[in-house]
């Protein structure tokens, strides 16, 4: 259990790390109506560097949802972070993605969760952009949003 989970009333600020290395994009620039309108929550996206690699856990917590192309890690009750690897990648049905963890696992921020190849996603005619969403949160709850380029495992934004 993390310190945040032990204190649900006055929760600590949650550092949300970049799951992949790449260029930070506002969600509004993500070519997907659900993410660009922040329908499931605010966040940022990362346009990944085009090299095969592993997407890492943005926070420490339990993997509550795990698809080949997307996962949700719950840092504490009510604070889940969604990472979506590319857009419309559900259509790939797992091809090109290798799971390194299982649903229900507790993972540490920075731990590899899924191996994938962003260039392969782009070659298939899809966007490789990776939205990172503070589920059911509000834009005003996010702080210290990264700009420019980020390295996987470094701060992307803080969930206050």
């Amino acid at each position, binding site marked *: 259990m993390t310190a945040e989970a032990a204190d649900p009333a006055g929760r600590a600020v949650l550092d949300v790390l970049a799951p992949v290395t790449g260029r930070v994009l506002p969600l509004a620039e993500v070519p997907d109506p659900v993410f660009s309108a922040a329908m*499931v929550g605010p966040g940022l996206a990362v346009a990944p560097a085009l090299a095969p690699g592993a997407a890492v856990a943005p926070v420490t917590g339990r993997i509550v*949802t795990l*698809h080949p192309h*997307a996962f949700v890690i719950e840092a504490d009750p009510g604070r*889940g972070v*969604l990472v979506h690897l590319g857009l419309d990648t559900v259509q790939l049905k797992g091809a090109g993605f290798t799971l390194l963890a299982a649903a229900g696992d507790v993972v540490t921020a920075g731990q590899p969760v899924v191996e994938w190849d962003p260039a392969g996603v782009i070659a298939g005619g899809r966007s490789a952009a990776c939205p990172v969403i503070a*589920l059911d949160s509000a834009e005003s709850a996010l702080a210290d949003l990264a700009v420019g380029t980020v390295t996987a495992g470094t701060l992307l934004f803080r969930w206050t």
Partner: protein
Amino acid sequence: MADKAAAIIAGLGGADNIIDIEPCATRLRTEVRDPSKVDTAALKTAGAYGVLAAGTVVQVVVGPEADNLASDIEDLLE
């Protein structure tokens, strides 16, 4: 959850109107026979964050519980 699944089926125009339903990380991707029977307001009342319709393809944005909801809906449709 089963109530929510039933409400979403109703919002999509009923079981007979649903051709296919597939969960993704944030949404249910459905194909319906008659898009005019889809009730967006009812789907939102059922808990959807939003509804994206393009012809017979209707995406119901439900967040990461899409997986569980799709299973419940499939159970109800069988």
